[in-house]
């Protein structure tokens, strides 16, 4: 009888230990999952590209300010962009390159932001994908005031690896 009581006590301590173990496991699982940041760099690069595209061409018509000659210098104010990131980053975390051409004639070709980020583009297959900056490139046609079509190429890159990948 005494032996049975002792065994029950040992068993309840064991069950308590198992409950603590399972609870700790669940806590670690939830912590692991929610502690991992969302990687939104590709979406951020797409948003940046869409903003630049909207600035260059609205409703299929090219922004007339492009031909003013100051577009490159006033790019940030005209397109209402700001490349400053959180204080944790010392270097600029963004890059934009814009190329506008008509047939074979290049009308506008410039780049803004951190040029070192270009090296990340096209390397996705060789190096581990997540640690590289995300590149998005798209090109489209837009019409000028003279009804001529212009080809616009935009490349945007977002780094911010520390904030998006553990």
């Amino acid at each position, binding site marked *: 009888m005494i032996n049975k009581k002792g065994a029950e006590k040992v068993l309840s301590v*064991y069950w308590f230990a*198992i409950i603590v*173990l*399972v609870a700790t*496991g669940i806590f*670690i*699982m*939830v912590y*692991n*999952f929610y*502690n*991992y*940041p*969302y*990687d*939104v760099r*590709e*979406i951020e690069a*797409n948003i940046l590209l*869409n903003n630049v*595209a*909207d600035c260059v*061409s609205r*409703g*299929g*018509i090219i922004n007339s300010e492009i031909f003013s000659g100051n577009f490159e210098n006033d790019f940030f104010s005209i397109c209402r962009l700001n490349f400053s990131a959180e204080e944790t980053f010392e270097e600029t975390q963004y890059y934009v390159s814009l190329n506008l051409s008509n047939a074979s004639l290049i009308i506008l070709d410039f780049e803004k932001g951190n040029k070192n980020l270009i090296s990340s583009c096209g390397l996705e297959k060789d190096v581990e994908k*997540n640690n590289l900056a995300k590149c998005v490139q*798209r*090109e*489209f*046609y*837009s*019409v000028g005031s003279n*009804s*001529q*079509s212009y*080809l616009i190429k935009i490349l945007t890159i977002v780094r911010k690896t520390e904030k998006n990948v553990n």
Partner: protein
Amino acid sequence: MSINKKGQLGETITWVVATIIIIFVLITSIYASSLVAKSKKVLSYDSYEREADGIMTKMILSYFLTNGNGQADILFKLQNDVFYGNAFAELNKIRNNLK
């Protein structure tokens, strides 16, 4: 005495095995949760189906605003580029509205 001892040993082994299984399931689940976090928390435009594409819309509007070679260039690009929406369905919709 011997039978009792054997019974106790059997019971102990059962609990030890059960504990090992519980620990194994927990470790697997913890590892799986970190793997799921790594793969599911990468968000991109391809992660979900989209019907609208701003760049595509710009090109379609440009198509109707130009003519001749320009229109042919735009049509060629609409045929060959990959968009997040159906370019030709959108093009035909606008074309029908303009009729």
